């Protein structure tokens, strides 16, 4: 495995373990995510992707081991919150707010003024397809796909250095999937570190420069994407579709 040493580490995971009722769901010896990398996490259901993300965001306590974000343990201080944005599921949304209110709330946590927030949102008007803003609905009344969009855009709005998205392409319509993919690629140019989990191998190999394959909580493949990656992944997964 080739790793450029001059890049600085964004995330470092050491001997991380999580167990639920005796079964190990995450078991990572050592993993480094460098700043500016776009990393795709793939694996079947139960591979431990969401559990890993939740531990990265200090939402669940690891059984053992530690996660360092810019060298600092995420469980011990809140520094990481200043540069990390995430969207895992609709539990991240505040369902009784209108989308505008939610964006303003998220923006205000970054000390953005309302007009700044509206400015930051302009690039996403295309993504919204005219359905989100000024719709006069609370977030809880939107479809899953649109809730997803709101959550992803709210994460992007925070201008993070580290972005964590759990299955961002799920529930999205094809047009939005393609637009989101393009957008994520432009972010890569801006030195944003991104962690994406996905079941869509096409998208994930298209967007990510590095793919980590999980099986039952363990890393079984960690590779930089090239023209063979998709085939390799398809081969792995087709063996497991019974």
């Amino acid at each position: 495995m080739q790793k450029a040493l001059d890049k600085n580490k964004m995330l470092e995971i050491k001997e991380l373990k999580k167990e639920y009722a005796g079964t190990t769901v995450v078991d990572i010896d050592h993993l480094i995510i460098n700043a500016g990398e776009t990393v795709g996490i793939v694996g079947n259901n139960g591979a431990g992707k969401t559990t890993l993300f939740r531990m990265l965001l200090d939402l669940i306590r690891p059984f053992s081991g530690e996660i360092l974000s810019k060298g600092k343990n995420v469980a011990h201080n809140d520094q990481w919150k200043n540069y990390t944005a995430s969207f895992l599921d609709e539990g991240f949304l505040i369902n009784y707010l209108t989308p505008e209110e939610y964006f303003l709330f998220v923006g205000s946590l970054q000390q953005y003024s309302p007009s700044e927030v509206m400015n930051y949102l302009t690039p996403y008007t295309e993504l919204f397809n005219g359905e989100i803003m000024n719709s006069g609905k609370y977030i809880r009344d939107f479809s899953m796909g649109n809730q997803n969009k709101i959550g992803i855009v709210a994460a992007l709005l925070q201008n993070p250095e580290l972005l964590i998205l759990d299955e961002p392409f799920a529930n999205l319509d094809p047009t939005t999937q393609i637009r989101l993919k393009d957008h994520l690629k432009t972010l890569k140019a801006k030195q944003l570190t991104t962690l994406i989990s996905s079941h869509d191998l096409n998208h994930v190999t298209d967007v990510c420069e590095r793919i980590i394959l999980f099986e039952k909580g363990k890393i079984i493949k960690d590779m930089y994407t090239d023209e063979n990656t998709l085939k390799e992944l398809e081969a792995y997964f087709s063996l497991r579709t019974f």
Partner: protein
Amino acid sequence: MYATFLAHQWMGFWRSKGKGGTIATQLIMGFIVLYLAAVSIFIGYNMEHIIMEMLPGKDVILVFNGMILYYFTIEFLMRLQLQELPAMAVQPYLHLNIPKKKLVSFLNITALFSVFNLLPLLLFFPFAILKINSDFGPFACTMYLLAIISLMVFNNYAALYFKRLTIGNLKAGILGSIFLVAVGLLEYFKIFSIASLSNLVFHTITITPLLALIFPVAAVVMLTINTRFLRSNLYLEELQSAKQKKSSTDYPILDRFGEVGVYLALEIKLILRNKRSRSTLTKGLLFIFYGLLFYKQDKLAADKFWTLIFPAAFMTGNMIMLYGQFMFGWQSAEFDGLLTSKLNMRTFFKAKFLLFTIGSTLLTAAVSLYGLISWKILILQFAVYFYNIGVTSVITLYFATKNYKALDLSKGSSMNWQGITASTMLQTIPLMLSPYLIYLPISLILNPYWGIAAIAITGLAGLSTRNFWINFLTKEFQKRKYKIAEGFRQK
């Protein structure tokens, strides 16, 4: 088909997620129903005797007749509060090959299974059968019974219809409440009397029993209106929520509080936009009238404050107690999002304190009107006000860091046991007892006024050491935050 529906409901009950809680709730409800039924039967059988005892010299039948419509008016109000709409259960059947008519009549039939449709029978039937039968003959008695059953059925469907109408329609709700308040005022000022109307109606029935047939006709009309409404509105979105446009609101006043204000604005929106929190709030507002029951002149004159501390504390602080009881469960749906946001825990707690302070201040301002009765009430209320924001709020927030139960905000708060745990029940004990622990010894050693002063001083001490308590609560929260977040993910 109806049998299948019933079977599904039965399975739905037994296989529900929070089964333990549901069964416990149902058991308690069952006991309450049995108790009410027993009391009703007792009153029903001894009605004649009770009326003679309580209102000696009055004509028993006159009193009884006057009571009937009175009862049904109050019952209607209670139904509006307590009777549940059996609507949500039909959702999974709407797309299947089942005629709408059947679904609607199933809804109508299940709506009849309610305590409200049992009590009037137990309450009025014995007297009607014993007394009316012997005085006016079996025919008049039968018509009486028919009228009472019809009124009950009418009330049943009228309450449900009114409730369904007001779910998506704020205007109808406001108009309805104004009407009810107006009737209440007219009654209060003796311009119009339900009792004398009731008397007139039922007296006429004893003379010309056939007139009672108006009641079944009215009941059938109400049932038809309800059925029509259901049939034309049996669509998912219309059963669920209002269609009017939701607007974004801002509370510019809160900007002065900076980041704390942002979280406070968020929580105010939470309270106003969710059913359960809204009904908790209105419940709290109703407790303002507690004072009318408890503030007695003789107690005040004798400086017997110990009977008044609890009502005063509850009126000025019920927002802390009723709303704070379920903290942070109110935010369970978005808790993961809050934890990953740039949220400073101290700010979070400061916002909670500010919310409690504002709530108590508003309530205290409202109940200050009781000061017109006596200045003693005023000093008592201010003392417990300081105690509430200084001490009660800390205790409540401490218990909040031990509450792992998610709260479902989409249901009303009356008779709703979802989210209630041992911790939420237990915390009311120290809240209610602690002011007495301070007041009683000092008022016995010195005098009652020093006791009140001690309550106020304790509250002020809590207020002036608030920073310490915020740090303490933050630490307590950090210890258990994974467990809280984990609990909130289990819906």
